[in-house]
Each structure stands twice: as structure tokens, then as C-alpha cells.
């Protein structure tokens, strides 16, 4: 800065690099798990864990695009369901079908995201309602398509992404394909959100939509793109989860709230303007680690619900407190 006096910026000691508490949380949880079950510290242990969390992590990072732009996407869970059911309907046990089914599903996802975005941007329906409607509709569509029960298997080529491991890898011994997907898609989503002009416009739209329009941001296009990204990642998450778990009728249900939860634990601001892809992925890891830990502790299901609720509130309360104190 040029020769002007700065206002009294407080002494540098108070401006420690601020580390997002979610990272601390993840590390603490994982250490706790390893203490309780040393097998977790071995490659099979943590690789299985990462494999398990991949679908949610990718999904949350995609959902973050919508959250940062100032909306919600409640339809992601139903998109996952539709992906799995639709794929099983189309596959008709033909291993080669995967190569056109996944692109087709991505296409369907893009159309769904586009519709969400158009409804929110041009019909001005609040995203909570628009995507709630989409969720109900898509669940119905999935049911209609399959007549209520899926009518085909997912071929192994389809399940490759969610299920298979590369074995005999040096040092880590096994490397699930899902973990590779997590790294690749996580990096792409990180790049889009934090390293491009699009990412900055996304933040701006979520922060102040009217100002964004007057500053020349193509607001509608940006918001629609956010919904498309979210829907596309939901398809990917569906492919991975379907790969891991096989076909079932309501495979995606509940994922929409988990994705929002992961983003929020990662410090994203609901209603837009702030959010980080790595922190959201860490939020998903934290969420899954909590479940695993409670599992290890052998706590009854109801107790797990209570703990989950407390952690959810506690994490957000703590983040708010920290943000206020640190002036962020």
C-alpha cells in the first residue's frame, strides 16, 4: 500500500493463521477411532473409510456450489436414487451398457439441474421449495420408471467406481477406485470454486444478488450453473454409491440433508457468500467419522442420533463463535 497510514491494525500476534476448526475435528475424530481400533490405522482400515465417505464427500462439495450461490438443493438425494434405479433399468445386465449409461445419466442430471436453476432464477421460486418439489417428483419418477422395484442389476463395469480396489499398491497396499474419484472430482470442484472467475461470481451472487447483477455478473447463468454442478455431482455420487451398495429403492434418501450438514460443518454460510470445498469434504469426513466412532463405541442407534444432533449444533455454534471472535 502506498504512503498512507493504515488504521490501527492490531498487532500481528493476534492474527494467527486461522485454521478452520473442521480440520481439527476430523483429525481428532480419526485419532480417536485409531485409538479405539488400531486396525483403522492400517491401509485397509482407512481406505475402507475413505471409500465409504466418497459419495457423500463429492455430493457435499457439489451441493456447496448451490449453498455458496445462496440456495439449497434438496433434490440431490433423489437424483442419486434416480441414477441408481435408472441405470439398473437400462443396463439389462449388459456390461457394455455402462459406457453409455453413465454419460446418459449425467445428461439427465444436467437437465434436472437446469430445470432447478430455471425455476429458481426465472420463476423465482425459493430454492428450498423448488428443489423440495423436484425431490418429490424425482422420487415419483424413479418409482414410476421401475414400477416400484428396480428391474435390473447394475453390471460390474458400473459398480467398478464404487466397489473395486486396486491391490498391491506400494505403501498403501490397496487403493479403492472410489478414493481416486474422490481426489479427482474433489480437485475439479476445488478448482472451479476457488480458482476460477466462475467461483468468484458464485460467491458474489450468494453475497448480494442485486449488486451482482449491476456489477455485470450474469446472475441467472451463474445460479443455474450452480444447480447443474450440484446435480452432476449427485449423479456421480449416485454412480459411486450404487457401485458400492448395489440397487435399492431409496438409496439416496437423506443424503440431501447430510450434504448440507457436511457443508455447514465445513463452515459454509447458509444463504450464500462463503464456503470452501476442502472444508466441506472435511465436513463429510467428520460426519462419517462420527458415525464410525459411535459404531465402535457400540452406542445404541438412539444415542447416536442424540450425539449427531449435539455435534451438529455444537460445530456450528463453535464456528460462529470463532468467526465472531476472529473477526472473519
Amino acid at each position, binding site marked *: 500500500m502506498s504512503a498512507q497510514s493504515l488504521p490501527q491494525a492490531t498487532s500481528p500476534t493476534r492474527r494467527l493463521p486461522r485454521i478452520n476448526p473442521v480440520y481439527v475435528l476430523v483429525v481428532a475424530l480419526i485419532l480417536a477411532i485409531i485409538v479405539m481400533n488400531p486396525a483403522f490405522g492400517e491401509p485397509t482400515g482407512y481406505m475402507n473409510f475413505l471409500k465409504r465417505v466418497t459419495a457423500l464427500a463429492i455430493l457435499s462439495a457439489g451441493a456447496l456450489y448451490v449453498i455458496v450461490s445462496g440456495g439449497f438443493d434438496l433434490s440431490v438425494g433423489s437424483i442419486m436414487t434416480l441414477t441408481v434405479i435408472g441405470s439398473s433399468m437400462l443396463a439389462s445386465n449388459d456390461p457394455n451398457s455402462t459406457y453409455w449409461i453413465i454419460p446418459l445419466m449425467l445428461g439427465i442430471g444436467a437437465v434436472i439441474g437446469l430445470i432447478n436453476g430455471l425455476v429458481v432464477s426465472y420463476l423465482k421460486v425459493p430454492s428450498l421449495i423448488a428443489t423440495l418439489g423436484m425431490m418429490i417428483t424425482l422420487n415419483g419418477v424413479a418409482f414410476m420408471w421401475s414400477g416400484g422395484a428396480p428391474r435390473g442389476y447394475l453390471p460390474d463395469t458400473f459398480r467398478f467406481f464404487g466397489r473395486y480396489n486396486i491391490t498391491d499398491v506400494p505403501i498403501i497396499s490397496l487403493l479403492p477406485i472410489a478414493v481416486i474419484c474422490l481426489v479427482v472430482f474433489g480437485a475439479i470442484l476445488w478448482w472451479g470454486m476457488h480458482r476460477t472467475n466462475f467461483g*468468484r461470481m458464485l460467491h*458474489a451472487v450468494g453475497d448480494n444478488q442485486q449488486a451482482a447483477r449491476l456489477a*455485470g455478473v450474469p446472475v441467472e447463468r451463474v445460479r443455474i450453473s450452480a444447480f447443474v454442478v450440484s446435480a452432476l455431482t449427485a449423479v456421480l455420487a449416485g454412480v459411486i454409491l450404487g457401485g458400492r451398495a448395489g440397487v435399492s429403492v431409496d438409496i439416496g434418501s437423506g443424503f440431501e440433508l447430510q450434504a448440507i450438514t457436511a457443508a455447514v460443518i465445513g463452515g459454509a454460510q447458509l444463504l450464500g457468500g462463503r464456503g470452501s470445498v476442502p472444508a466441506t469434504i472435511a465436513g463429510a469426513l467428520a460426519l462419517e467419522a462420527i458415525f464410525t466412532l459411535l459404531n465402535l463405541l457400540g452406542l445404541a442407534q438412539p444415542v447416536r442420533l442424540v450425539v449427531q444432533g449435539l455435534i451438529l449444533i455444537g460445530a456450528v455454534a463453535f464456528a460462529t463463535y470463532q468467526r465472531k471472535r476472529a473477526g*472473519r
Partner: protein
Amino acid sequence: MSDAPTIEMRGISKSFPAVKALRGVSFTCSRGEVHALCGENGAGKSTLIKILSGVYRPDGGDVLIDGQEQHFKHPQEALLAGISVIYQEFSLLPERTVAQNLFLGREPMKNGLIDNKAMVAETQRVLGLFGVRHRIEPETLVADLDVASQQMVEIAKAISLNAKVIVMDEPTAALNEAECEVLFSLVDQLRASGTAIVYITHRMREVTRLANRVTVIKDGEVTASFDHVPAPDVIVRAMVGRDISEYYPEPATPSEIGPVVLSVSGGANAALSDINLELRSGEIVGFAGLQGAGRTPLAMALFGAAPFTSGSMTLDGKAVHLTSPRDAIRAGIGMLPGDRKAQALFLMQSVRDNGMLTARSFANPFGGHKANRFTDLTGMNALLDQMKVRAPSYEQEMRFLSGGNQQKAIVARWLALRPKILIFIEPTRGIDVDAKASIYHLMRDLARAGTAVMMVSSDLPEILGASDRIVVMREGRIAGEFSRSATEAELMLAATGETGVAA
């Protein structure tokens, strides 16, 4: 009544996470006086007021009301103690009526229920004091009012409390001359009736016109305190720590004024009719008029935000039809909106991201955010330095900057794009003298570099001082054109369409 001043603030300190806003500030105000509080943007004026009114709690120091020490924990307690504040940022509820806003939190009750009738009647009475009874109806929604009327409601709300202290934080920022006059006479009446008034403004004329005493804050400390009203340059020196030479830059010489960049003929829409207009490169055109005269709609029409529905518009001689801000920006038009918080600021983003946004919007969306064909991070830093934006760091979030510094930061947004035409709407609203001067010089520099500048302002001295040519609007039409040698009276006459109007 004791001799103690109505309000006394002693040794007030206040820190925000990133900045020490106040350090040991003392301030008093007694009944029957107007005490002007001056200081640059970010000096800490609003913060001091918010401590007085219980919005913030001080880190150190005492607040005394009528000699009694007070520790307000909620604005309500300050209100009950007789302190009424017109805040710098609007504090109205757009979806409620004028009457409901006026009586917010203290609705008249009858049998335990809200007495709507009494509320409307009382509202009408209070609005009558301002002579705006015909313009503002008690049961209109505030959202349907223009900015000036909203500010009137804000003022009426504070005054109708019959408080013993009224604090006005830049009350005239959104008002035109005539409305300012109404306010000034009200302030006179209030002073006469024994109210203590704290008055914050960046306009020296208002200090001279109204104040009994003046206190200047700089960087969170009192730098000067006068029991009289000194000459403006004395105040300015205390504020900025130096003299400001050449407040208004030199006007353009005829040779500097270039060809017509933009012309409109027969432009009209719901708010405008029969607009014929030319803007030339190198020229600053000031747009004057009363509230509701259509200056903002005209700016919005040129900027494509609320396009003309008939008529034609040419840019560099070519016909254009702009239907969105993006169209306009692409065609080389930029605009700084009047309502900064609602229309221009991204409070959660960094100062630099605020500055870079427009450039990024027109670059490849998948291109890196650090550099684009318009500017890069270093370039933006240079622009922000040039604007003298005061921030601990340009990575700081915008919401921690004072109003004036926010305005300067968003000017940088447009500079990066080097537009052919730049529209400023109330560019110096809420900006301190130093910054004002730099904005005038900046506009002039832009003009010299060939930009056509359109400046919408309600500040007549500014219109006269900074423009090369002046357009006056009335009722959605252009009511007259003047050179910079016109007088305020001539402009007012054209603006009101009446004779014998006091300037």
C-alpha cells in the same frame, strides 16, 4: 435541571477484531445545542454513536446521561433514556407501512391491542411537520417509497420520539437541497425547544449552518474540539491532518471535449418521457433535480437495468438496444449505484474481490481468478491504492470497512474496465472531504482520458463545482441544460418549475 451536560462520554474505547475504532474519545452535548461531529471515513463517528445508543458496548470509558452513569445493553434502554438516533444505514422495514415503521416497537395501545387509528393519525401529524404529508401516506409500504422519502420517514421516526437527545448520522445524504432546508429548520426548532443534537456530516456547509460546537475525530481519537464553529478549512485540516488544495479540479477545456459518445432521442419508459440527450467524451455532465425527477431511472435506462421502451439510442454513432447491465457494460458503460449496501457491495468478500468482480464477470468464467484480460491482482492493488482505500489489508472482508472506504473500493471496480461512459449516482454520498476531492479529481482524470462521465447528484455545489455541463430533470423529462456558470437558484427553478423558490 442539573448543570451536567445531557450526554457526556468519557474516555470511550472500542476495538473490533481487525481494528481499534475508538481510543479514549470524550464527547459532550448539552440541551439546546447542536454539536457537530466531523471526521474522515472510518474515523469512528458512527461507532461512537452506536455506543451511545446501546448498539455496541464500549471496551472502556463511561457514558453519562444527565450526569447519571449508564450502561446500555440494548438500544431499547437508550431509547428509554431519551436518546433517539437516525442511523447512517437505513433502519426501516420495507414490508411494513410508514405508520408501522414510525411507531416500531412503541405502537400506541388500547385495551392491550395496537391502536391503528391513533397510529395513523399521529403519523399524519408528524409527517405534516416536514411538509411531506401529501407525498407520504401513513399506510403506504416503505418499500414503495423512494430513497429520499424513506430518509424523511427515518427522520420523522427519530423526531417523533420527543427524545432529549437526537443523534443524526449523515441525515442529509439522500436529501436534496429543498428537503435539507426542511430538515435544517426542524433542527432549529428542536434546538430552540431544548433538545440536545449530535449532528454528523461530511458537508461543511451544514456544519456552518447548524452547529454550535464542533468536535473532530481522526483515527479513533479526538484531534480538535471547538466551542464555536471555525472556518471550514480549519475543520478539514483537523480531519485530514493537512490542507486540501484544489477541492474541485479544473473544468475541461473546449479542446478536451471530444465527439458525441452516446445519444438518446425520444427515449421513454414508465418513469421517463421524451429524453433527448448527448454525452461527449471528455465531458462531465451533472444531472440535477428533485427526488423522483427521474435521474436514477434515466441512469438505469442508459445502463440497461430498466431499459427505454421507446426511442432510440446510439453509442459511437451506432444504434444500440441495451436490455441488461451486461449489455451496457459490454458496450462500454459503467455505473456506480446510489444505494451502496443494497446495490454495490459484497460484504462477505474481500476488498480486492469486490474490485475485481466486474472484470471477472467479462472474462472467461473458467479462467483463473487472479488475472484476466482487464486486470490482475497487482493491478487491482494499484487501483485501490490510487483510490486511497483504507483497509488493514485488501484481503479484509468488505463489511469491516467504513462507508466511505467501501465507496472508493467499488469505484476501482469500474476503473479496471476503462469504460467509455461512467455513470456515478450520488458518488460522494457519505464520503469525507478528502475522499470527495479525490473522487472529483478522479472523475476529471477519467474525462481527460476520454471517458464521458455522467454524474447524478443531489448536492448542488457539487453539481456546479464538478460538472462541465448540467442537465436538470423534472417529472421524468429533461427540464433544461446549463453551463457550469449557472447559479443554484437557476437550477432550482428549472428543477421545480416554479418561480421564487429559495435555493
